[in-house]
């Protein structure tokens, strides 16, 4: 499966254009990380990609077919969306919350079946919080709830999963967990992934392709190693950094150390 953005343009009005003629694509088995300073429009971009907010011009193509021509349910069966965690209003249990992700596979008049319960528990296992299935959602920490939302997106068995800053609110270990999980599902299950992230290190680690956005600057799209450089980080984030690489268990790792404002 491949998602393509073709010359997408979005703004809240003609004076406030946020994205001007942006084009990129993601396929199964790829992780696209999106970076940029606060307020640049990363979340808005995700919403435009998924059609939650319409493009001003340009379009999203799914396997060459314009998203606008696709049936709502058909689209969402293949795409999973994990927004930023805002907490839960109602005290649904974790499992009930994850089961909601099965909606696109269920008839309007159905309630979840055994299969649905199966898949939901699997999803909880994947994110590592299966033991919490009975806990009410409004008793969870921000990070735990974030994991529930990821599990919910996974429960619909999407081909591409889109996440908006999933590592926020997570402690060190859980951040590792999420990153590891994303890597795993992409490698093992061949899922595609689009992730907004504030952490260039995670972006590098997840590898594949990146999109960098900056104020009054052209967007950068390409392999992560080419996009995420000291020069680009300085230009797009306004922070001078030092990147240090090292080997660990036959794998390349890179650390980015912020030095001073540039």
């Amino acid at each position: 499966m491949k998602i393509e953005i073709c010359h997408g343009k979005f703004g809240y009005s003609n004076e406030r254009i946020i994205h001007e003629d942006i084009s990129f694509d993601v396929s199964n088995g790829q992780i696209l990380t999106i970076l940029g300073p606060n307020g640049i429009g990363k979340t808005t971009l995700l919403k435009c990609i998924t059609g939650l907010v319409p493009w001003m011009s340009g379009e999203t193509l799914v396997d060459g077919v314009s998203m606008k021509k696709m049936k709502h349910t058909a689209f969402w069966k293949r795409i999973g969306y994990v927004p930023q965690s805002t907490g839960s209003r109602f005290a649904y249990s974790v499992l009930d919350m994850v089961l909601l992700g099965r909606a696109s596979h269920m008839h309007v008049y159905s309630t979840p079946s055994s299969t649905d319960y199966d898949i939901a528990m699997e999803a909880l296992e994947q994110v590592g919080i299966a033991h919490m299935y009975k806990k009410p959602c409004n008793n969870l920490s921000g990070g735990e709830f974030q994991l529930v939302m990821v599990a919910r997106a996974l429960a619909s068995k999407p081909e591409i999963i889109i996440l908006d800053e999933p590592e926020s609110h997570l402690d060190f270990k859980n951040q590792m967990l999420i990153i590891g999980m994303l890597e795993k599902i992409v490698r093992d299950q061949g899922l595609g992934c689009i992730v907004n992230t504030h952490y260039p290190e995670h972006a590098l680690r997840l590898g594949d392709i990146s999109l960098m956005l900056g104020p009054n600057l052209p967007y950068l799209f390409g392999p992560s190693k080419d996009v995420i450089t000291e020069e680009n980080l300085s230009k797009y984030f306004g922070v001078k950094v030092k990147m240090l690489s090292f080997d660990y268990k036959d794998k390349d790792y890179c650390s980015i150390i912020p030095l001073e404002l540039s």
Partner: protein
Amino acid sequence: MNTELSVNNVKRDFKIAWWKKAVLIALPLLVFLLSFCCGRFQVAPNTVIEILWDHFMGLFGVAPTGTYTAFQESAVMALRFPRIILGLLVGAGLAISGAALQGMFGNPLVSPQVLGVSSGAGFGAALAILLVENLFLTQISAVIMGLVAVAVTFMVSKVGKGKASIYTLVLAGTITSAFFEALISAIKFTADPFSKLPTITYWLMGSLANRSFADVWHSAPLIIIGIVVLVVFRWRINILSLDEDEAKAMGVNLKLSRLIVVLCCSVITAATVSVCGIVGWIGLVIPHICRSIVGPNHKDLIPACIAVGGAYLMIIDAIARTVSASEIPLSILTAIIGAPFFAYLLKKSGGQWK
């Protein structure tokens, strides 16, 4: 997968405890039967049983065997029976509407009145009482104006798109309610203070007095259809309670789903107002009571509301028609019992809506 968390165990954990289910099924049935014994006209319980039995067996063509007067039979079957059925339907309908709307708006303080249906229906009824003295026309007028009020709310709320829409809907509902309440006041102002005004005032306070089977046929279809659709749709209401983007991401047609829920709740509420006047507190309090019994998952909440809501109003109506010679309006009783209970729930839950 971890055997402890095997699906069967999990599902069993999530089933409502069997005894709770038993109570929820038994409660309305029990109240239903006991209500037949309540009323100002003294009919001994065993006579009531005889009458009910004979009528039940009569459905199969069995001749009546009990010894009771036509008077007693009339009291039980012609006077109490329609009221009990209506109490069940109206109570269940209002409770389920309240639950669905609270779920849809993601706001536990919402009641079926929020979209202006009750005020509109009340206006329709008051207008009909003022102009004609025909019960059937009053009922039709109430239903029509109730739905008109919801339509007005929708039109007023169309100010833009995006996240604001749920809030603009509530605001629009407040505006519409206020408008129709003002119209009701205007009608009260012009009504004959000696005959029409007391009739309108009493009607607006809610009562099942003088209800016959004709009223049941007029309102039951609407209420039942609304309830059935909401029951079928109940699990999806969970999704409607999420943020807009989250809900859309589940593949749900948000606009259509909301429309269905609102339409069902409006039809149910308008039908209840048409036959019973405006009865408050049920749509607000019963869902909370049920949440504390079965949890917030609408899959279980909606059916629970039918049981508890129906039982509640049957009890209230039994009190209204038995406690004193004069009929007590229903909304007085539901408020006197409902408000303190709500305060108690609030204190107990500490503001956390379980």
